[in-house]
């Protein structure tokens, strides 16, 4: 791969990574910790919302984030022709 292309690939990778980390931070440290007291005034079924994010929701979002990341990385790999096989 040429140098310019290599840089573009890495830039795309870091861009995706930043997006994932922002969501990762918002659901866990944001909704689950910093904003939890405020969110607890809202209810999701019997769950206070902040408590829900802390003990359930954030974990589900983590799973979704990893699979989304894996899929998007696969797309980026093919776009820049660095994929395996």
């Amino acid at each position, binding site marked *: 791969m040429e140098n310019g292309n290599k840089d573009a690939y890495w830039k795309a990778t870091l861009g995706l990574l930043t997006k994932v980390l922002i969501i990762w931070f918002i659901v866990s*440290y944001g909704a689950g910790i910093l904003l939890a007291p405020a969110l607890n005034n809202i209810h999701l079924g019997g769950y206070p919302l902040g408590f829900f994010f802390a003990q359930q929701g954030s*974990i*589900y979002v983590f799973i979704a984030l990893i699979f989304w990341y894996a899929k998007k*990385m696969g797309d980026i790999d093919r776009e820049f022709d660095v994929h395996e096989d």
Partner: protein
Amino acid sequence: MELQTTIYLVVGLSFALYIGIAIWARAGSTSDFYVAGGGVHPVTNGMATAADWMSAASFISMAGLISNMGYGGTVFLMGWTGGYVLLAMLLAPYLRKFGKFTVPQFIGDRFYSQGARTVAVICLLLASITYVIGQMTGVGVAFSRFLGVSADAGIYIGMAIVFVYAVFGGMKGITYTQIAQYLVLIFAYTIPAIFISLHLTGNPFPQLGLGGDLVGTNTPLLERLDTVVTELGFSEYTTTPAGSMLNTFFYTLSLMIGTAGLPHVIVRFFTVPKVSDARSSAGWALVFIAILYTTAPAVAAMAKLNIHRTVNTAVQAQGDLYAPEASIRAEDRPDWMHRWEVTGLLKFEDKNGDGRIQYYNDKTTNPEVQKRAEAAGWKGNELSVNADIIVLANPEIAMLPNWVIALVAAGGLAAALSTAAGLLLAISSAISHDLVKGVFMPDISEKGELMAGKIAMAGAIVLAGWLGLNPPGFAAGTVALAFGIAASSLFPAIMMGIFSKKMNKAGAVAGMLAGLFVTLFYVFAHKGILFIKGTDYLDLIGGANSFFGISPEGFGAVGAIVNFVVAYAVSKMSAEAPAEIQQMVESIRTPRGAGAAVGH
């Protein structure tokens, strides 16, 4: 069938299964021994990683801790799952592309320094050995509670079982036994939880039951739990944090970074065939982990409500908790309470001599609770419940059949054994691959190295068993020490090795040492130098949690920040990494060309 016979049968069958797998999956090469030949399917690896990850602490103690801490228990739930996002994006795929056998090998090659490799080996050994002691004591505890043998005999039996599949099978044997162990432990965990959820909320899914209404009422379970515990003087279940909000933040962050930096977890991702597999495999690992981790908070809250309901009839009837006839009579208490009183994990003492059990927080500062307790003639809390009971006695509290109780025994053992085996592999490969082959005998043949690996494994098992029989003081500090070290030294070094092309030897070594030093300094200030009683030096740092109220368990993240800052500063003052190293970094950043992991 007698309960004891059933337990022997179920545990015996599970052990026979593990040994059968061990005979089938023997290691013939170093590649088999270190990375299971590199051909493990990503879903399979995810399941093995889940068993590797979920220890005796996750299985036996975590729900109990959450039950006591309420919302504060969140630090474990998010901390021990969120790290997989970091692992999947920041480390696993790149280390897989690097294609070697161990974590210290990456650090040594990337920072072109045997010194860096040796520092990494020391960090790995410190973290893994602390961790493995907890597993061995867990094996002893599970044996002594369920099988009627002494804890010591339990540890010997556990050592023998691990010996068979870890020494002969290496990573290959461990991987396939871990899959069996995962299935045993997840059924053992979820079946009682499903029944308890059905019983309380009518919903078979504990995750939904936790957010549901109590059977026959319109009151949400969590709301009722909050009301009951606050009326009895405990802190509110759904809102009370672990210390301050800042501490919750750092505690969670330390566990996340530590999780991603623990070598025995990282090496599992060296076993999959491709870089893309390493990414998705982390997702599968988290799916299998989440089945237990989303069930645990439900078990915690439901068991807590159940215990209050058992001893106070007004909890169910929504009446006056302080009414004299609401507390149950001591002679009416259920059989499972008698059974666990024998073990000392549950204690009842009739302090006011009324023949009834009063369970409340007698240390509350809430004046109204104090007034009501006094008016009711309560003279102190009469029931103490050890956190471990929450999982272990769960099937009995829910009145489930004997085979479920037996399954919980087998599940606790599976959780402890699978984690112990993964740790032992990380320890033995650091010795045989990084020290014997890497430093002392670079010309050793593959056959010789495989033999060295097996001997190191056997030695590690004996050491772990010995430490389990004679636990040193630091066994209790597993979380602070193992996660602190992984977070403050290994994670930043690996991450900078991948994401900064210019990061050099001097920066990485200085960063690792600085991160390790400040973390150990803070942890030892609280818990004693090497956890030896009486050697703590809290005065020197100005009292407990003196650094912005952060507890020693949450300090790993601070150590990691120190590591990053020191490494950056030192690398700016010294020559940047050589061109061939920068090229190597470029090559691990792209997936194409990832072959199977090789030893040199």
